[in-house]
């Protein structure tokens, strides 16, 4: 992007954000703060004429923020391209459909406003499982009220659902899946729970006792076991995206993946559930577990 294109983008944006510091502008537009100042310098000398009142007027406030006093009629942003409007609509559709993220009624009003003005081509539709919505609302209120929640959880790393008391801290989403990060009172650690695996949830009267700052919300996978697998591409979704460290394409259909799993019993169960689609390359122990778990069926 050349300086003119940057200036065309930046000037109306500065008008919309009076007092924004140069560092923020630099971050937003992916350039250095020095470059921002150089561009502002160009702006100072430009306008429809050369005399007072005919030039763009940019000032630095006492707070070191940038204030555009006179944009010489360039105070509105340029219209969006078709691709930009579609990308925006798709992102808003995501916010609207995922109850964990925003108030969907408010997003819907915004979508109407934007659709009327820009007429974007819709590209993405999301169909979520409405059965999860009540649970998400319950978790949201538990986070706000800072109370505990009792859940019945069908864990992905064990074969049996368990009753747990959790202290929900934060909701997060990956594609159409919603997760809750919570303090698990049994494990005495932060855990990530998939909302679609929470079979039952109820609010408790008990207040949350563990105060966790965001830093600690990152899941600890250091104790997880390294495994190497060969599998059909479409089974990659069975594994946690965050723990996959490498994917190597073997052919159009098969990939070799290095990842981490919480325990090998769980891995054996995933392998069995995939029919012949997943082969464990290492550790060997996991292959033995697959065979022994199926022993009843091999007679």
């Amino acid at each position: 992007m050349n300086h003119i294109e940057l200036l065309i983008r930046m000037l109306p944006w500065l008008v919309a954000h009076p007092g924004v510091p140069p560092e923020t502008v630099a971050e937003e537009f992916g350039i250095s703060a020095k470059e921002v100042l150089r561009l502002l310098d160009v702006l100072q000398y430009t306008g429809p004429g050369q005399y007072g009142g005919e030039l763009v007027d940019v000032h630095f406030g006492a707070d070191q923020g940038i204030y555009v006093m006179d944009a010489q009629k360039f105070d509105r942003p340029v219209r969006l391209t078709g691709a930009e409007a579609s990308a925006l609509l798709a992102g808003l559709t995501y916010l609207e459909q995922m109850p964990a993220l925003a108030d969907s009624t408010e997003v819907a009003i915004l979508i109407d406003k934007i659709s009327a003005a820009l007429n974007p081509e819709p590209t993405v539709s999301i169909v979520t499982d409405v059965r999860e919505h009540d649970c998400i609302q319950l978790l949201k209120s538990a986070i706000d009220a800072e109370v505990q929640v009792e859940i019945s959880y069908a864990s992905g790393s064990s074969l049996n659902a368990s009753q747990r008391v959790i202290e929900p801290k934060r909701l997060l989403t990956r594609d159409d899946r919603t997760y809750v990060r919570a303090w698990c009172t049994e494990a005495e650690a932060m855990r990530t729970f998939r909302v679609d695996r929470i079979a039952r949830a109820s609010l408790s009267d008990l207040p949350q006792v563990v105060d966790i700052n965001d830093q600690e919300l990152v899941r600890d996978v250091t104790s997880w076991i390294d495994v190497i697998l060969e599998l059909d591409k479409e089974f990659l979704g069975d594994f946690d995206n965050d723990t996959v460290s490498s994917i190597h394409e073997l052919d159009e259909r098969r990939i070799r993946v290095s990842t981490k799993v919480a325990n090998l019993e769980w891995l054996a169960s995933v392998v069995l559930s995939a029919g012949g689609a997943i082969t464990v390359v290492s550790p060997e122990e996991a292959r033995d577990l697959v065979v022994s778990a199926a022993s009843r069926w091999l007679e």
Partner: protein
Amino acid sequence: MTAARTERLMDVLFVLLNASTPITREQIRQRVPGYDQGSDEAFQRMFERDKDALRDMGVPIELKNFDAVHDDVQGYWLDRKTWLLPDLKLTADERLMITLAASAWEDQQLTSVAREAAHRMGSMALRPHDGPDMRIGVGQTKVAELFDAITNKRVVTFAYESKSSQTVSDRVVEPWRLLLTGGAWYLVGFDEEREALRTFRLSRIVSAISVTNRSCVHDMPDDLDLAELVQSWSEIPGAKSTAVVRIDPGTCSNLRLRAKSVESTDTYDELTIEFGHKGRLLREVAAVCQYVQSVSPSELNADIANYIRQAIAVNS
């Protein structure tokens, strides 16, 4: 581009932006400092180049008649209404929603398009540090590729492995919509050879997607309800089948959650499960097969045994 040229182009832009009627080349020359030196010819060449450069950057400079009386004189005109966005009167909350919407993509290319969109809406583009933790298009390069094809209404071709026959065939598709549901991405579109709506799971597209320069001729039907379409996948026409699964007492709560009824004895729990897709039931039972004592009807029991043996064959 030299600093002098940048300033000159910006001046041309502002002169046009502030003019209330089309203005002649000569009028532009008088107002832009960089044009006042050199011969007429040099100026004309310079102006032509500058004007084309601005047009290439998307500035819609038109050549227009002055008015009905002077129809032999033409001037340059930059229509603010066509070029600039109308004021959508967005609230601070709405601008924040736009920021979030722009920062949800995992794909780099979509992210930069969405950020540009946010900037043009007068929003911040970078997600605030206390914003929600979310990501869309996780691990899916095909989402970005198809996004462009849908926006530009271009026919795409790709090799697709059908789930039922496990055979790969080349498909020619008019792409309508990307559908995200049940943890998977799909393309909904018009299959030109089959002359009908088809849904393709992106993970089963086994080739690169090539975007042709042919335009789509079929529009997505207005009454197509994608939620209904998704619903229909889990419903096999005709009756559902029933399986009876005996498991060790107190185990397999994942499977238990799905059972219509559970009967407990001392030696086993008996789950009655209704199912539409046999494939899904095979996966679910195989996952917990160490706790499963038997499955009826017996054909289903044999299918499960077979399915499990396939997993063993590639792991021993």
